[in-house]
């Protein structure tokens, strides 16, 4: 399995009410020092054997607003990373971008710097919705940014959308969906709005400023996304992700299939061989640690056998293809049926025999269907109905 490199750029011009990523609004003057620190962090990890021996195939600039960086800054980071780590030749290099921070010239320069995939934060085509989300761009700017990206030569563009806003009707959501599919992006991420603890929006919710979308509404909207995007060739491959064939996010899939990833920058998480660790969630502390040649790691965990098993199931079932049952056994050392036969009885007709499971279902010669999940082609996957209840189903596997 090849590894992914994530670089967190926390800087933003303003902070959006729903966002719970680590961000730093209005501190752009810190960018040069921060990027220097990123390069130091690259140096430190590339000096360790465990990361030196990894083959990387993706690099992802997330944020925050990475498009606040100049193309030169982006170029410097990419080349430094490629110098220190081993990257495969067709690596996927993604830049998250805010529609109001880009134009054709800048995007062309980014492309020259090595970026080959763009993720645009469109969110909605309705101005009232953009306002509710505190987005500082218009729908028109989103469209311009998209055409600018195409003009700059990008042929792998993803759009981010958010739905389940309070009072949002199916019709409005359908308008956003049909409007963006007309642009023919290769990839769409559509997120149901979540009120994360500590965000301004969750405070407003608690104060009763608005009512959140009901479960029923959220469900209707998600099903509309699956259907409309599917009709336009954007196939759902994870709870919130849709892509044309060959355009799934290679980087994000690493999070779900257990590949190693190294997260650089403040608050970033890394994972390697059952160990997860994360950086300090503070820009100044991050920079200061690296100035002293110290890794800015703030915490870590080593997954227990149980945690490892559960994460495999949870991350597997979030994907449309499901959990590959033989891969589960390879990763955890435990045969799936042996571990979860009583859990499976809650979903499938009782009395599946271990022998039948090992012989027919694991190998994929037969399939088994139930309301919420199916076993097919050697994968355990959620049905259309099951996807809606993914968390509740997965908690049965804890």
């Amino acid at each position, binding site marked *: 399995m090849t590894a992914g490199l994530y670089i967190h750029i926390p800087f933003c011009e303003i902070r959006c009410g729903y966002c719970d990523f680590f961000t730093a609004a209005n501190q752009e003057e810190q960018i040069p020092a921060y990027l220097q620190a990123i390069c130091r962090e690259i140096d430190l990890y590339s000096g360790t054997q465990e990361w030196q021996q990894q083959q990387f195939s993706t690099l992802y600039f997330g944020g925050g607003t990475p498009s606040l960086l100049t193309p030169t800054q982006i170029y410097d980071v990419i080349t430094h990373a490629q110098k220190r780590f081993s990257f495969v030749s067709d690596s996927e290099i993604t830049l998250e971008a805010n529609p109001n921070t880009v134009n054709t010239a800048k995007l062309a320069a980014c492309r020259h710097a090595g970026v080959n995939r763009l993720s645009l934060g469109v969110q909605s085509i309705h101005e009232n919705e953009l306002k509710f989300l505190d987005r500082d761009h218009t729908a028109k700017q989103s469209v311009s940014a998209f055409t600018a990206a195409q003009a700059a030569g990008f042929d792998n563009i993803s759009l981010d959308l958010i739905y389940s806003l309070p009072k949002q009707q199916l019709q409005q959501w359908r308008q956003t969906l049909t409007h963006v599919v007309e642009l023919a992006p290769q990839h769409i991420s559509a997120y149901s709005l979540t009120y994360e603890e500590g965000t301004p929006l969750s405070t407003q919710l608690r104060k009763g400023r608005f009512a959140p979308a009901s479960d029923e509404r959220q469900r209707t909207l998600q099903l509309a996304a699956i259907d409309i995007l599917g009709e336009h060739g954007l196939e759902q491959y994870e709870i*919130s992700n849709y892509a044309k064939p060959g355009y799934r996010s290679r980087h994000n899939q690493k999070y779900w299939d257990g590949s190693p*990833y190294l*997260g650089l920058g403040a608050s970033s998480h890394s994972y390697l061989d059952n160990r997860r660790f994360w950086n300090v969630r503070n820009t100044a502390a991050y920079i200061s640690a690296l100035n002293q040649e110290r890794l800015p790691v703030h915490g870590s965990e080593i997954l227990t056998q149980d945690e490892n098993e559960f994460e495999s199931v949870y991350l597997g079932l979030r994907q449309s293809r499901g959990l590959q049952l033989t891969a589960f056994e390879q990763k955890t050392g435990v045969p799936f049926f042996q571990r979860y036969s009583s859990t499976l009885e809650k979903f499938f007709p009782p009395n599946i025999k271990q022998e039948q499971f090992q012989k027919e279902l694991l190998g994929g010669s037969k399939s088994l269907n139930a309301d919420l999940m199916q076993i097919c082609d050697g994968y355990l996957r959620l049905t259309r109905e099951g996807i809606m209840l*993914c968390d509740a189903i997965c*908690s049965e596997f*804890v």
Partner: protein
Amino acid sequence: MQTNKIRNFCIIAHIDHGKSTLADRMLEYTGTLGHVAVDQVLDDMDLERERGITIKAHSVTMQYKTNDKNTYTLNLIDTPGHVDFSYEVSRSIAACEGAILVVDASQGVEAQTISNLYLAMENDLTIIPVLNKVDLQSAQVEVVSKQVVDILGIEPEEIILASAKAGKGIKEILEAVVERIPPPEDLADKPLRALIFDSIFDSYRGAIAYVRIFEGELKTGSQIKFFSTGKTFEVAETGHMQLRRIKKNKLTVGEVGYCIAGVKQVEDTKVGDTITSAKKPASEPLAGYEEVKPMVFSGLFPTDNDDYEELRSSLERLKLNDSSLIYEPETSQALGFGFRCGFLGLLHMEIIQERLEREYNLSILTTVPSVEYKAYTKSGECILVDNPTLMPAAGELDYIEEPFISADIIVPTEYIGNIMKLSMDRRGTYKNTEYIDRTRANLHYEYPLAEIIFDFYDKLKSTSRGYASFDYHLLDYRKSDLVKLDLMLNGEPVDALSYIVHKDKSFDWGKKICSKLKELIPRQLFEVAVQAAIGHKVIARTTVRAMRKNVTAKCYGGDISRKRKLLERQKEGKKRMKQVGKVELPQEAFLAILKIE
């Protein structure tokens, strides 16, 4: 010790009327506390303090120097303050020659005070009436004095006005105890007869009996015998209680104190039993001993089946210091292995449940409390049914009898209508009314016990703005038209949810229980059909719809650990639920019946 220098007394009062505060002040005044004020020292269990009630009686011995410079030994015997423990109260009263009647000057006489007062009068106790909290603005000294005068048939001058909180009237009360209450009879020459009015369990010393010596003496090293069991023990230690044990060589006639004799369990030191000498026994025990019988039965199940053995040993340990708790193993199809327990009343049941959870750290599931029915089969057999699942099938059943109680309800006259309406709802039979004064009446009713064990007391309070008070005792068994109501989830009967109800109420209850369960059962991955049935006939149904959406939108590198912990907690939350078939039931579901309006 000369008996003429001893006074034994108790305090009769309603909850919150100031009994514990008065006791504290008396201890302070007599220097028993070493002049350290400790609030409400008599209630030494956390639970008692929290619930504002005294569950177990204790005694305390005080030395009091009167105005005429004589020193007297005053033994204050505390009494439990809840109707569940009325037998224990009666034994405490039987150990005394006098009682201080404490009435809150702002609230007047309450039902429980009256019934305990009558008990004291039946035992020929001298009553010292005290009006407490007279310094409150809301005090109605004249009105309440008149009530007390009418009830006791005394002169108004006999009433002592006091404020225990402010320390007013304490000396007068102590003087009255010495002057008015007669000393114990001097029967020193007779064989030992000592009344056990309370007992506790001490992990180091075993069962400790609190006793009042009526005849003879109790000496360290002597052989004693318990009348009810015939078991003999050697007295290891005896003495007075002064908040802690004060060792003495012997307790003589008229004295009150404790007795430690290597008794392993409180079952052998039963309240009401008589201790006599093993060598020279008395021919008869003291009068009034009764085996305490539980009135309310309920299943206790560990939420986690693995905790069964731990529940068993916890119950064993609780039983060591609470002989009124009875239990035997019970198996439920829905809940697995547990125990059927008998309690003195609902409060007793709640206390046991809370102690198991707090002191033994167990998660306990309680099933709907039931009374003990008598089911007569067509073959003439009588089956005692303390658990609805034991009820014979309709085809075999001839008729059912249920326990009835007689109740006193004291209430301001303007609420009489409300009480009558509540009583109709509870199948009550009106007997008669006595007027305590122009504004307050004592209503006499008979009810089926099953109708009052749940929430009758709460309802009584809410329908009378808190003014009604209530006391009852068991009458007899009477034939009633009862049916067993079964609940089914997805077509499967859940035995722990079965309930015996009067036929006239069954349809209404079936509907209400179904809708209550719908409210209490959280949405699950699958739809849950809830049905109520009598025999094979379904009389009500509702559906708990399946969950509609439960999925995290975002799960990238930085989210995974957090989401995993979230789902682990979600699962942990489910552990408090009971899995019945595919359905996960919260604990409250098993008590849904109690929550029906």
